[in-house]
């Protein structure tokens, strides 16, 4: 029995190594989507937002900037890939959970979901000109007329960045 085990041990080690390497390779795949950048108008006084505020801003609560003005979140359409990924990463909700959350909130008499626009490009164009507006976009698609915020002090390229 022991001899049999010793025979298959190298195979098991090799298999485990392949699995680990494969997982690492997958994690570091260049095809992995870029992290989300949280963007505001270039002249916004805002430079950082906490993940707590970001979450509650996109859950319909009132969050204000350093100038005391209400921040206005812009969403992407409910079925867009980025919206689903953002909701999962920041709100911790699947598409159905998100939909149920907004329905329940409206029935309680609370405000509805942030306004959704058709594309991240359109959202950024609005954000660039609208004081207090904010949206999320893949880092690879950020337009030059908006400013990327730090989230809990981290930029999207930092390893501790949480909005991915």
């Amino acid at each position, binding site marked *: 029995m022991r001899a049999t085990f010793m025979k298959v041990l190298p195979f098991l080690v090799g298999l485990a190594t392949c699995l680990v390497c494969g997982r690492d390779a997958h994690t570091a795949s260049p095809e992995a989507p*870029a992290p989300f950048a949280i963007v505001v*108008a*270039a*002249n916004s006084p805002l430079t950082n937002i*906490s993940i*707590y*505020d970001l979450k*509650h801003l996109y859950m319909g*609560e*009132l*969050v*204000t900037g350093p100038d*005391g003005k*209400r921040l*206005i979140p812009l969403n992407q359409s409910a079925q867009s890939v980025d919206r689903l990924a953002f909701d999962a990463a920041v709100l911790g909700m*699947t598409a*159905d959970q998100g*939909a*149920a959350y907004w*329905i*329940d909130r*409206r*029935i*309680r*008499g609370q*405000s*509805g979901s942030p*306004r959704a*626009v*058709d*594309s*991240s*490009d*359109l959202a950024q*164009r*609005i954000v*660039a*000109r*609208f004081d207090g*507006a904010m949206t999320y976009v893949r*880092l*690879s*698609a*950020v*337009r*030059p*007329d*908006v*400013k*990327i915020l730090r989230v809990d002090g981290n*930029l*999207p*390229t930092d390893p501790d960045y949480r909005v991915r």
Partner: protein
Amino acid sequence: MLRLTLSASLLASFTLALGSGQAGAQALDPEPSSPGPGEPPTGVPPSDVPKAISPAAPGAQSADAPDPRASDVEAQVAEEMRTIQSQAAGSDQGEHHRLDLYGFADFSYMRLLGDSAAVSASTSTFSVGNLNLYMASELGDEWRSLVEVRFMYLPNGAPPSANPYGPVTDTSVSDPTDFGRPIQWGGIHIERAWLERTFHKLLTVRVGNWLTPYGIWNVDHGSPVVIGIGRPFIVGEALFPASQTGIELYGTADFNSLQLGYHLTLSNGRGPASAIADEDNNKAIGGRLFLRHESAFGTLNVGTSLYRGQYSSKHLAYGVDANGVATAAYAIDSQYDELSLAADLKWQWRGLLVQGEVIENEVAYTPSGRTVSTNPGAPAFDSDYRRWGAYGLAGYRFAFLGVMPYASTGYYKEGSPSYIPKLWYFLVGLNLRPTPRVVLKLQYDHIHFYLDSPFQDENLLSAQTAWSF
């Protein structure tokens, strides 16, 4: 006229759809000016934005001609900004005002089981319980309005609350549009109607008729939102008034992952016509403090609520004084001071939900407002009393079909001589949410009444589908 309006709307929708499609296509175009990863871009004046649009798409215009797609995108940006501004920044010109109509409804089946079925008039029944319509509107400049009405078949088919064992109300009338055949009319209950303005995260002022901000269930309110079928017994007994008419202030403050919040209320209080009149010119006050904490162990909400008011019911009594002069004065039918206290807890962690509420209500009659007792075996006049109760509920929502098995238990003690001095119940059920807008519920209740009668236990099987629209 209607056809013209519809045609115009369809055309507008079609045009909008085309615009959206173009915008979507635009979003897929590569952006040559986009920075690389990790390079925060610098600001560009908004007037330069059209230049950022890629001209590489098939059928693109020459460099000298304006790009129609660019103008479409600009028009879309401008339209979106106008909409957002009108809703959020207070620049509503009053020309295109948006009213959101939505609501919920539920349909239930209930069957009494065992001995309890022998003493009930209706042991197996279908019913449409709630048909609630919301009318909500963002009025601009942080003003917001909400009206919720419930359409009912009532009062048809129900006995008066003052005589619950009497004959049911029949609202049948002749329908002149159908050869005078009988039709039964129903009623409308205004659940809430308020206007509010947010001045700051710490202060929103709401006026009108609003749901009393206490506990969990009274605010959850709608059948698609609440887990079980029907309200917990203590919530249904209205130890706090379900809604009030007056002024409510509320706000929140955040400290890292902790949120503290408050509600303060001033209202007509409870009364037979509290939505339109304060029968005793004695305003009721109330309040709620709550905190919410988020951590790796989920979200914990803890709250406590208070209500202090006077109930008065009176009528105009006519008489003749010693000089033979006719007099008219209000006579008190019933009047009492009341104090209600409550505490609630709600914990959500992944699919787990645990919640509970404890509510107490103390009633002290005024000397002129003590009522004659109608309870058999009780003293001639109603005594002051304290009633209280509690419930707890636990459930776990699975990802599969949104299934949530749940269980709940509750206790209620009336505190005064009454037909049901106290009760205890236990229930188990399944709450399914196959799609976000549809909720299916199946529930079994066992209720134990502390009565001097053979019918101390009641078993109930019920099912409900609730949907939002």
